[in-house]
């Protein structure tokens, strides 16, 4: 069991580095279905996992390539700290069933957003990686 959990973490981590996401989107359903957790418990545990800088190793690879906007990143961190508290207050009193359904809708929405190919209208948005992505 412990081994499965460790491997699950590793698999999620690969996605974190590859896609630049937090990992919670994968962690929450994985814990609900593989570890048989309740929706609230899975979400709280996911937030716990994301407290330490788990993406630091992945960030290093992007940093070396100059693919990081430090100022925008700091602004985003501040915004998410504030918004996160509001979201937590909304989620805790919700019935587990509704929270699970809402999470499902959120996954569908995110899937659409991720699928769309971003169109960089602005070539100033210094996209070194974009050239390889386009080829």
């Amino acid at each position, binding site marked *: 069991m412990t081994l499965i959990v460790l491997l699950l973490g590793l698999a999620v981590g690969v996605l974190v580095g590859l*896609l630049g996401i937090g990992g919670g989107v994968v962690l929450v359903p994985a814990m609900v279905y593989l570890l048989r957790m309740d929706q609230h418990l899975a979400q709280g545990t996911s937030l716990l996992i994301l407290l330490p800088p788990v993406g630091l190793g992945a960030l290093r690879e992007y940093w070396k390539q100059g693919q990081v*906007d430090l100022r925008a990143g700091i602004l985003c961190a501040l915004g998410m700290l504030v918004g996160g508290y509001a979201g*937590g207050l909304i989620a805790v009193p919700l019935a587990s069933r509704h929270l699970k359904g809402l999470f499902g809708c959120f996954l569908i929405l995110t899937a659409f957003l991720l699928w769309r190919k971003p169109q960089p209208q602005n070539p100033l*948005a210094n996209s070194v990686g974009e050239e390889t992505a386009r080829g």
Partner: protein
Amino acid sequence: MADGLLRNASIFVAACVCGVASGLFGIGGGALLVPFLALFFAFGQHRAQGTSLIALIPPTGLLAFLAYDRAGYASWKFGLLLIPGVFVGGVLGGWLAKRLQPRRMRQVFAGAMFVLGMWQAAAAWWR
């Protein structure tokens, strides 16, 4: 610089929206932040991902986590077991992202999430 100020303000507001989703769904918020940065602020895909990762370095979910933990909704045992894997996997993924074309990966991932989302919503409300 007014232009820059407006842009910064919009980025902050977009991040607040990601934060609400983060707290509401117990996720990091990057899954929303990456497409936001790419679609609304014309970030290249790699740059959006790198910037999202830096936004996730500080414990942005701390306040949300406290709200959950107070209600007893956090499993410390599984949480602590998952952390090292996610970290090591992250290094691997970051290394892979330079070598792969992330677009295909993203679409496979989006497809999987779509199916998973439908399944979860149906399982929750279809009874």
